[in-house]
């Protein structure tokens, strides 16, 4: 009797959180997808209306800008953060003095919220108060750095701030990876007189493939859901030139009373995430089972 009860305990303990996740994550996800197929405006409506909302989305120039921005921001943010993080990690791995202090300095931006990062960079990049004004005050009166207010370049300021925030975190990931590489192989390679560059490219980096994977997964979900950074840094402006899908969705749902459109954009975002995560999970699970 008691033994049977004991067998059930894990299930009992897990049940509340399991059902909470089931309702508050998956059920609401399904609800959102459903709403995307209705004509809901300020309040949800439940009469199905086909793919109308997705048609509107496809024709919306603002959504097009948001998607373009997501690609520009996402790719640059992931690539630059990874490369810079790896570079910093390799430099820090050279058994230098006061490594601990340096590591904290590089990791520190991660402790800030994106809102703080965004606001600080807004001041730094603002031509009237930041770098441009500063360099001009030295006498270079033709110096120009107006990316923040230039509709064609504003999206890159978000990349700058995002990389500043996340590169340190990627560095920490890679540093841990570097330290876990079997030192004996490296010593053996050194004894054989192989150059440091080749040790890195042929031995150390290939053995860190899982670290690359984690870094890219963490960074890509940061990129897709990034919202607060845009809100704090540019507010989506100039115009809507720095809108991302998440800010688009927020504007439709909460300032415009266009729930159907918001749900449709959320559904597209969900599909994007699924398209990245599912192959990853599939390969992970298969390698474990296999």
């Amino acid at each position: 009797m008691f033994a049977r009860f004991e067998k059930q305990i894990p299930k009992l303990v897990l049940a509340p959180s399991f059902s909470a996740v089931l309702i508050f994550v998956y059920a609401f996800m399904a609800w959102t997808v459903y709403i995307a197929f209705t004509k809901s405006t300020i309040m949800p409506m439940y009469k199905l209306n086909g793919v109308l909302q997705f048609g509107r989305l496809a024709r919306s120039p603002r959504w097009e800008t948001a998607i373009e921005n997501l690609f520009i921001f996402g790719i640059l943010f992931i690539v630059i953060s990874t490369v810079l993080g790896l570079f910093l990690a390799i430099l820090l791995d050279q058994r230098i003095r006061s490594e601990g202090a340096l590591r904290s300095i590089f990791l520190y931006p991660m402790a800030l919220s994106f809102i703080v990062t965004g606001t600080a960079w807004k001041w730094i990049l603002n031509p009237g108060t930041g770098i441009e004004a500063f360099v001009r005050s030295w006498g270079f009166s033709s110096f120009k750095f107006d990316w923040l207010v230039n509709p064609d370049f504003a999206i890159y300021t978000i990349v700058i701030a995002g990389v500043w925030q996340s590169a340190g975190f990627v560095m920490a990931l890679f540093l841990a990876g570097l330290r876990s590489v079997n030192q004996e192989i490296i010593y053996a390679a050194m004894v054989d007189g192989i150059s440091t560059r080749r040790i890195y490219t042929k031995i150390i980096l290939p053995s860190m493939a899982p670290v690359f994977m984690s870094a890219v997964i963490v960074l890509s979900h940061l990129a897709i859901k990034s919202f607060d950074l845009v809100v704090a840094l540019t507010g989506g402006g100039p115009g809507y030139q720095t809108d991302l899908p998440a800010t688009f969705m927020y504007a439709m749902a909460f300032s415009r009373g266009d729930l159907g459109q918001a749900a449709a954009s959320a559904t597209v975002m969900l599909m994007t995430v699924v398209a990245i995560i599912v192959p990853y999970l599939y390969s992970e699970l298969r390698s474990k089972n296999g």
Partner: protein
Amino acid sequence: MRQKILGIVTAVTTFISAGTAFAGPEAEVLHWWTSGGEARSAAALVAEFEANGGTWQDMPVAGGGGDAAMQALRARVLSGNAPTAAQIKGPSIQEWYSQGVLADLDDVAKAEGWDTLLPASIANHMKCGGKYCAAPVNVHRVDWIWANADVLARAGIDMPTTWAEFNSAAKTLLGMGIIPLAHGGQAWQDATVFETVALGIGGPEFFHKAFVELDMSVLGSDTMEAVFDQMRIMRGFVDPNFSGRDWNLATAMVINGEAAFQIMGDWAKGEFTAAGKSPGKDFLCASTPGAGYLYNVDSFAMFAVKGADKIAGQKLLAKLVVGESFQTVFNLNKGSIPARIGTPLDKFDYCARQSAYDMEVASGNDSLLPSYAHGMALRGAQAGAITDVVTNHFNSDMKSSDAVKALVAAIKDSL
């Protein structure tokens, strides 16, 4: 055991319902008047409500220019627990009405004579299916142009009465190294400037056809293209650093003489007076070039509630909100003017009296129009579709003809 539980439940319910037996008028009010002058204005209403024997349950939701409050309201209504009243304005009132959740205030309105006290076009916003369901609090005029009196005197220019005059004045100012137009590059501010230009260039009838009736032939007309042309000219009159600036920082630029003009609703006046400037002397106010009057009216929509004390509270609230004393105190604090016609204005300043006079004139000749940029003319999705085009045109090198095409396409695609 079961009997016992049932007994306790019954006892508790009796106790609770005894506690809620008629205890005088009661109102739970959802609003987002949480900052400085606005909070003082709201406090005036609470004091008056309580002086009349009511119990006020405050439900302020700060943030997002009301977005957060709307979110809270939606959750409350969906769960079948609507507040007595909520700060909702313009076409949103009709949207809530179509959900079947608003109350009928017609008996209060009849007793108080709202039909004669309120300008007809404003009263129409307050009616749901011909019956009053909301009460107006104030009237903000949107089509104001503010100027630094000293800068204008030095440049030797008067307040412009046509957009051509504005353009030539702006060129003079540019020559003097003064920023002609203080502007903040946020979508709603772009939209505010756009609608005053549209009213000035197209006139009241054009404005009504375009932004209230959404007449496609007017939206796609040459006049609309001329409006976008003027917007392109005005893009040259703002400083290069205008993106994302808050409106009150733009006002500060006019106050300290860095810039000459600002186009902004009458809430900007509060910034001038807070800086110790007096209207007519340090700063000038005038309607933007052209005829007409664009209003932005705050109001309380009344939700269908159950219980005698709540309904009594709702009626008392409606009566007080349109009453003379509240309309005076509230609007003195907020910088707007009373929605109630004939409220004595001797405590109000020169700009407010001008606004009240213009409102009566405009009401007489069909040029009292709802502001589209401030959510009075259209539903959120449609207004947003226009604003997207306006802000994209203003912040890029889009041609006016393309902007007109984009405008028509965006409206066709909005629900």
